[in-house]
């Protein structure tokens, strides 16, 4: 089974409210990633976990938080959503290493109003 699941698939949020997105994988991968995808733009890496070690990108460090309570699950948390957070959020997992294949979920489409 090479499935990465994301919940919910669609999320509507109000400006200023928190948002929590969930990702799960059953491949026992030690690395999990979150990317933000806006129309006509490249998927932007937000953060990734290697095991329990969180690596956040410098330019989005304060905008996104994450937790990984166990190997299979990873969440992406936005404390106070702004209009600029409207995007598709892609979760992926892989074995550790720069040459490892990433397995992606279908994405969560977040709309902030």
């Amino acid at each position, binding site marked *: 089974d090479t499935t990465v699941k994301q919940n919910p698939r669609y999320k509507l949020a109000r400006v200023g409210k928190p948002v929590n997105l969930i990702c799960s994988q059953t491949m026992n991968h030690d690395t999990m990633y979150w990317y933000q995808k806006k129309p*006509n733009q*490249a998927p932007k890496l937000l953060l990734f976990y290697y095991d329990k070690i969180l690596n956040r990108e410098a330019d989005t460090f304060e905008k996104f938080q994450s937790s990984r309570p166990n190997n299979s699950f990873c969440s992406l948390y936005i404390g106070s959503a702004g209009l600029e957070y409207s995007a598709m959020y892609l979760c992926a997992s892989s074995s550790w290493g*720069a040459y490892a294949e*990433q*397995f*992606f979920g*279908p994405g969560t489409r977040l709309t902030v109003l």
Partner: protein
Amino acid sequence: AQSVTQPDARVTVSEGASLQLRCKYSYSGTPYLFWYVQYPRQGLQLLLKYYSGDPVVQGVNGFEAEFIKSNSSFHLRKASVHWSDSAVYFCAVSYNNNAPRFGAGTKLSVKP
């Protein structure tokens, strides 16, 4: 600045025609190179990857890519496209132990 560039946002070809999707990267050091495909309502899937050896690497469904170091390019090719190849194609680059960075993607439309 480190970047991945896919200069063509959209490409349209006729079924049976050959295809080349372009990718250029700007990274120091030795890159690990990938092509992913995203079909409608699905997650990205790996087509092929390259690190070393023969600069032409074969992937799934008849796709191949050529690494040209002097040009910092990793273009994707297919000799004869099928309507089912219609999708969005992403080039990605990683190095050392960093997570992959992606290009903006090229949307391929195959005309019957």
